[in-house]
């Protein structure tokens, strides 16, 4: 409980500090809106030209896009410490100060950053979700709403877990490791679209190694009424749990990895 309280206090403080320069904050938030709006425009143009993607209609594609933006940017909003700041903490030796304090390293890393500018990106994602669900004529039920919530939470944990890989590698190599972007940002680009349109190697990568398909596409396909691979209902609630599994494994590895941390000495 103490940890959560600490996290909330830090978030409130960070928010205040971001709002200290209102004009700059406003400009950057606007820029984020335009950027994510541009991404949505691409999907709209794709739908305009091609009308459907395999068995998925245009409306379905908006829904998949929305689910990815909401999850990805929620993670960036609340987990900025992991998704953005950690490599520079290692490089500059700022991590040393965290080692001295009587709290877990991971807790402190989480408490050290947030990115409220992402709020507009989440807004675009929500708009895409609403648009997608209206265009696909989704009949909402309690189970479907539950599946959506579970999917978003689990996807956030998954994305955090994947970003932690970069953190772990970076403890060893000091440099930030661009290659990991292939599964984090690459996963975002690919899994904005349903997994079953991709060739087998990519399907395996994003179902087993970085299971975006499990946390997002299985529930989303159920909500849209077109179950993925014809899997039964219970899978919709079980497969997203792979998100928490990845997060858990990465937490253990992270705590193991931190033992090898050698300060850069600056």
């Amino acid at each position, binding site marked *: 409980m103490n940890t959560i309280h600490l996290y909330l206090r830090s978030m409130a403080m960070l928010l205040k500090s971001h709002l200290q320069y209102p004009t700059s904050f406003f400009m950057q938030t606007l820029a984020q809106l335009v950027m994510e709006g541009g991404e949505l425009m691409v999907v709209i143009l794709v739908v305009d030209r091609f009308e459907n993607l395999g068995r998925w209609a245009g409306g379905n594609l908006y829904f998949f896009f929305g689910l990815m933006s909401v999850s990805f940017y929620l993670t960036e909003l609340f987990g900025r410490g992991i998704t953005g700041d950690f490599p520079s903490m290692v490089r500059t030796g700022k991590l040393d100060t965290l080692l001295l304090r009587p709290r877990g390293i991971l807790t402190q890393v989480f408490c050290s950053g947030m990115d409220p500018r992402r709020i507009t990106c989440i807004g675009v994602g929500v708009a895409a979700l609403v648009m997608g669900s209206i265009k696909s004529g989704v009949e909402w039920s309690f189970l479907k709403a539950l599946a959506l919530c579970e999917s978003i939470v689990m996807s956030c944990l998954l994305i955090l877990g994947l970003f932690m890989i970069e953190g772990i590698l970076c403890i060893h190599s000091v440099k930030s490791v661009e290659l990991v972007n292939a599964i984090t940002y690459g996963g975002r*680009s690919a899994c904005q679209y349903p997994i079953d349109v991709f060739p087998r190697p*990519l399907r395996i990568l994003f179902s087993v190694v970085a299971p975006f398909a499990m946390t997002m596409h299985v529930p989303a396909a159920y909500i849209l009424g077109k179950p993925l691979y014809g899997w039964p209902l219970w899978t919709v609630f079980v497969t997203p749990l792979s998100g928490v599994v990845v997060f858990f494994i990465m937490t253990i590895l992270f705590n193991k990895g931190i033992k090898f941390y050698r300060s850069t000495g600056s």
Partner: protein
Amino acid sequence: MKAYLTVFRMRNRMELQYRGAVIGGIICQMFFGLILIALYRALYAGNPQAIPIEHVSCYVWMQQAFFRMLVATDPDLLDKIRSGNISYDLCRPVDMYWFYYARIMAQKLMGSLMRGIPMLVFAAILPKGWGVTTPTTFCGLITGLVGLFLGLVCMCALENITMAFTMRTLDPRGMQSLMNLLMVTMSGNLLPLTLFPDSWQKVITMLPYAQLLDGPIRLYTGEYVPADAPRILLVQGIWAVALIITGYAMWNANRKRIIVQGG
């Protein structure tokens, strides 16, 4: 002139220093290219289009290969603007605009060649429909290369215009991310311009952003037949001159009202 050439050469060598660091970036971008092509192939599977998929794949690879040309910026200049050290540059016996023009050109050229060549070699060995196509005519190859050079000239001019804005606002983030968005959308990096609605294309292909990579790539793939080539190259040339004049005027205006930020 000699001074600018020396700056250009020095900056080229600087770029070549970090060969190791780019490997991760190259692999990452190849992966992005493969994802995009897989997606377009899936879209094409049910809905064949007028433009063959081979050209789209080729377009995607070229965009990935020369991505660095679009987005590379001069970090030293940004630092100088923020810290006020730009005042030292006023003492140099060279024209500031062309000094930074030569620097950014070297950075964009070397940076993208270093990344682009391995990527295009990789794309060339991929099976048909996944990799790059050979140009349809010899003329297409030559005009494509000339177009690419003119595109580079335009790109450096655009970059200097962005920098001129930064000198006024001092905070690069807002303006730069806006310019970058215009850059990646309107130049065909996010979605090939050939897949935009046909009515939009008439306008978009006339804008400066389409001159950077879209024009040269279409000349190469044969989307623009050789008979069109003089017209395309002329549009590029006009934009290059216009952008350089605009940028030059902005830099001159800025030089008169430059504010040095403190100690």
